[in-house]
């Protein structure tokens, strides 16, 4: 995670980047749900094509997309590999006690397609605007202010604390600590976690005092935003149209 920068490509000048964040989030979320609930392969594949086209339009480098897509594939693979064997149905191929069923293969492909398409769209939501812009758009649409602030702070400090923990790990290594499968490793890391928690707790008190001295009273002002432009509505209309045609199939 140390070289991880989710906002690296958040300021490219594509049609997705210039889309109003509120319209973008709502339209893409509707599309994600439409794809994730698609009942058969064809609409799911159509959804995947729409997702890939949108990613191409966004001009996010494909290497970044591939690195990002590693995890959903890892999470979906166990399901996708098991289902062909464990689903009852017409036997396509059998080897000793294992048999691949047509229905199982169908479900496996369906889950994989829906999962990958939905993950690509999630990448578009966060990858095409700075996180603060996205989360403030959500607040404008009704996310409670307290939750918005927890999001902003937690996001900000995840990177900093990760840096801090890697320094602590390095200092443990310098003192001869090696991670093994034993109780001592578990206890040592538990102490390190506890220390990280104490540091972050104490830091939070300092952060709060610093905020108070700058006039914090419990909410962060959000800058006013103009109404939606015709181009925002047009983009939303296109994406929502795709979502409804996937749902209708």
């Amino acid at each position, binding site marked *: 995670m140390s070289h991880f920068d989710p906002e690296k490509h958040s300021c490219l000048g594509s049609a997705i980047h210039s889309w109003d964040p509120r319209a973008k989030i709502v339209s893409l*979320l509707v599309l994600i749900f439409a794809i994730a609930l698609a009942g058969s392969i064809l609409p799911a594949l159509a959804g995947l094509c729409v997702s890939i086209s949108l990613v191409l339009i966004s001009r996010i480098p494909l290497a970044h997309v591939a690195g990002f897509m590693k995890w959903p594939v890892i999470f979906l693979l*166990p399901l996708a590999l*098991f289902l062909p064997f464990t689903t009852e149905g017409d036997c396509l191929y059998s080897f000793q006690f294992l048999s691949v069923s047509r229905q199982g293969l169908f479900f496996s492909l369906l889950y994989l397609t829906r999962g990958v398409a939905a993950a690509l769209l999630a990448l578009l939501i966060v990858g095409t605007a700075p996180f603060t812009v996205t989360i403030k758009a959500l607040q404008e649409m009704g996310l409670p202010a307290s939750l918005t602030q927890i999001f902003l702070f937690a996001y900000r400090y995840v990177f900093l604390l990760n840096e801090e923990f890697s320094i602590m790990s390095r200092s443990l290594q310098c003192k001869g600590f090696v991670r093994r499968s034993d109780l001592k490793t578990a206890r040592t*890391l*538990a102490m390190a976690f506890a220390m990280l928690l104490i540091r972050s707790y104490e830091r939070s008190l300092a952060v709060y005092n610093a905020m108070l001295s700058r006039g914090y009273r419990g909410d962060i002002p959000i800058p006013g935003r103009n109404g939606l432009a015709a181009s925002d509505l047009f983009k939303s209309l296109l994406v929502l149209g795709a979502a409804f045609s996937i749902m209708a199939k």
Partner: protein
Amino acid sequence: MVHISDGVLPGPMLAAGFILTAILLYYSLKEIKAEEIAKISLITAALFVASLVHFPIGPTSVHLILNGLAGILLGRRAFAGVFVALTLQALFFQHGGLTSLGVNALNIGLPALLAWQLFEYRKNLASPRRETIFGAMAGGMAVLASVLMVSLELLTMGEAFKEISVLVIGVHLPVVVLESVVAGAATGFLANVKPEMLAGGNNGSFPR
């Protein structure tokens, strides 16, 4: 595998997950004070970072969930912390997904609240190591509960998911033990060094 990805669960279950998560979020954030926000956020971020650390188990490695520890530290606010952490994970690391966010938040967050309740019982035990003992119990129980919830949800999907449900429980049993050791040791350490950090601690920094 404790995170359920997009595209797997049926619509009604996703909807139920979101509704229950919204209710628990409301309960978790009720009467929140301005000074709590920074604390909840930083502890959530620290637990997030710690959960990314890999533990070697034989030839493979696992990472912790730490939802029990979240309950022990944040009390009622733990559900909001879990929700925020899972959303960040779904968005930036693609662990889990946006459509299954409600169900996933319930799977991890509800056991966090149970862990907090279990940890409260430590007050009935007159032992200098009661935080370690109850921390270990709460930490292990929280992961076990999460794994059982995931497994049950997969089971409701039909006969074909039986083997996967059993597999999910099987591969997570070592995590339950590990999590219990880590949560116990960390809670014992915190009870000695900074007892006010524990939920319902000396100054009650997080309301019960």
